């Protein structure tokens, strides 16, 4: 069988195909079909020749096999220093073999690569900081995912995720109507407590255009309400676009570069349509990386920048606290040990380490903030990055990977973990479920709402 009904080389393009794939519970038939999915060797080799250029080739060629990357990798450490988890080993075993064999590889080999690319590396790029030759194995793994995706060797959930973006331009089936309704619903729901609260849709020329993660309208609409409340308290002139509000990109996790371009083009079109002064993204690391750090390149923007200044939520919070748009009531500052999860995607991969510390200085009573070891740019992945959180096939490996973060948190002695990233938040929730260490975890928004001073004129009338 060259290609299966579910497992094939064609990305999901229609709602019908998406629903059909979703009906294959846990991808049972999908993975069965994958066992006989044929590799299009010619296409694989052509793709490698066109896209594996001097940077990747040099990285492969000059890797000194020195092993300095080994214990930079939390997956290597947490899996009892398994030599197969040494970053260089993982990459060489996939990409070098594909190149040496000029794409003439077997189905079993591709399945093995899929297992490695999605369950043994979260593309966190921590190893890149430890390699004397400057080899970024996170980038290479991401590149390999692209090759695997083009051949149909991609985990079931990632194929669905990429399909969601292609069909709905959102990682979940949230349509424009669903989204706009959720905005209206959340504004109404909170209007009484917050007089004058609005979630303005498609307002042109606002100071801020806000974008979020589809998980929010789908599963935690209160997060959207909380964003609205904080903008309201801060007196911001803001809006959300009816189209192009979704900032995440499972296409990036899947290696679906064509889909990644479609997704980010949609957000940039909203910026160009509504012409906001700047854009603020929600508390999510991969959404930020997808739309702000990598997105401009998928969209073909030579400046490397989105069409308007585009910042992460933590940057807005720090600025609002610094300028006094948001004021913390000193009596409500956090007075228990609290630690902070640094998201790889906006800390290591966008240099936002200090700004979150600035926020902590406002929110936490001196002496109560404890750093994880290591932290900031050297922090470990939450354990569920790069799509790892969402793939059922690798649940066991993911749960094992969570132990790194569990042990880091336990070592701080803190019971509260602040995590301004959806993916990290999910991983920390799951680690508590799995290991029951008695911790709580939170985004910034609900904590801030409980702590900020409410200006007189915004307080509900008795």
């Amino acid at each position, binding site marked *: 069988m060259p290609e299966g009904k579910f497992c094939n080389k064609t990305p999901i393009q229609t709602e019908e195909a998406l629903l059909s794939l979703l009906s294959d519970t846990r991808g049972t038939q999908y993975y069965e079909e994958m066992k006989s999915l044929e590799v299009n060797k010619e296409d694989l080799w052509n793709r490698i020749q066109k*896209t594996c*250029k*001097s*940077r990747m*080739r*040099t*990285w492969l*060629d*000059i*890797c*000194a*096999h*020195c*092993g*300095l990357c*080994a*214990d*930079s990798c939390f997956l*290597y450490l947490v899996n009892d*220093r398994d*030599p*197969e988890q*040494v970053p*260089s*080993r993982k990459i*060489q075993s996939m990409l070098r073999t594909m190149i040496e064999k000029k794409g003439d590889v077997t189905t079993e080999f591709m399945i093995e690569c899929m297992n490695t690319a999605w369950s043994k590396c979260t593309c966190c790029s921590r190893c*890149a*900081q*430890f*390699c*004397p*030759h*400057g*080899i*970024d194995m996170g980038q290479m793994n991401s590149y390999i995912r692209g090759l695997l995706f083009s051949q149909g060797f991609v985990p079931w959930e990632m194929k669905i995720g990429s399909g969601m973006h292609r069909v709905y331009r959102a990682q979940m089936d949230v349509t424009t109507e669903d989204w706009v309704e959720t905005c209206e619903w959340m504004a109404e729901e909170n209007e009484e407590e917050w007089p004058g609260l609005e979630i303005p849709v498609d307002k042109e020329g606002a100071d801020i255009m806000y974008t979020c993660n589809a998980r929010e309208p789908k599963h935690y609409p209160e997060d959207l309400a909380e964003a609205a409340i904080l903008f309201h308290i801060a007196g911001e002139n803001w809006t959300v676009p009816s189209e192009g509000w979704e900032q995440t990109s499972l296409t990036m996790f899947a290696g679906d570069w064509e889909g990644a371009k479609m997704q980010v083009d949609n957000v940039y079109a909203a910026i160009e349509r509504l012409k906001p002064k700047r854009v603020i993204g929600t508390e999510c690391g991969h959404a930020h990386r997808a739309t702000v*750090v*990598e997105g*401009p*390149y998928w969209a*073909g923007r*030579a*400046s*490397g*920048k989105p069409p308007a200044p585009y910042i992460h939520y933590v940057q807005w919070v720090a600025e609002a606290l610094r300028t006094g748009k948001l004021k913390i009531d000193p009596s409500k500052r956090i007075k228990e040990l609290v630690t902070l999860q640094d998201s790889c995607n906006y800390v*290591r*991969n*966008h*240099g*936002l*380490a*200090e700004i979150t510390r600035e926020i902590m200085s406002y929110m936490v009573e001196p002496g109560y903030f404890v750093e994880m070891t290591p932290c900031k*740019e*050297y922090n470990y992945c939450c354990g569920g990055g790069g799509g790892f959180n969402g793939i059922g096939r690798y649940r066991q490996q993911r749960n094992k990977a969570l132990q790194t973060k569990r042990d880091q948190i336990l070592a701080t002695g803190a019971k509260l973990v602040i995590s301004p990233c959806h993916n990290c938040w999910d991983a920390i929730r799951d680690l508590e479920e799995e290991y029951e260490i008695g911790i709580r975890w939170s985004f910034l928004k609900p904590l801030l709402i409980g702590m900020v001073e409410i200006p007189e004129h915004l307080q509900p009338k008795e």
Partner: protein
Amino acid sequence: MYEFLTGPMLWVTFTVFILGCIYRVVWYFRGLDWKLDRVAYKADMGLGLKWAWKSIYHWLLPFGTFSWRRKPGMMSLFFIFHVGIVFVPLFLEAHTVIAREHLGINWPAMPAGLADALTVAMLAAGVMLILRRILLAEVRVLTTANDYLMLAIAMAPFITGILCRLHVPGYEGWLLAHLVSGHVMLLAIPFTKLSHMVLFFCSRAQLGMDFGIKRGGERGRGLVW
């Protein structure tokens, strides 16, 4: 034979070595692609170059990076090995004499005692690097026969060189072996992993630009990638 290896063959070897290295560097930079690499090289050249330099400089400095500080043992082996391999061939008195007589170029030599010490230290570090490959599971899993071959090619001119210097029996033979292994090493550089002699700078520059331009460099943190 001696005359040939220190005469016409020297020209051939240097030509292949230099042109080969230039080719690798040019090929590297021409193959960079802002879209595929996802780095705005042109748009942010100034910021990029600043971080490229920073990245190279700090990795050439002992204890200059977090990674080096974390592994002082490996760092020492790395620096001792590379200081020996770069400076001894360039500044050994016997070599400067050949350069003057055969190539007509004049440059200063290092004291013989220092050259001896650096050679012995470099060879000792090389032996330790080999032991490290054998003993550490995380290095052993990466190691191929090629890695040992590269170490052998790099160390052979130094082993034969020190034997000549010590005047062990069979001087003529050792001298010839020294010349041949020296040529082999120089000729191997552009065609093997030893090309990192130039490509190290290229790859470090690229990653420095990558992190500098888009992954936080603009925020000016004192970190080096």
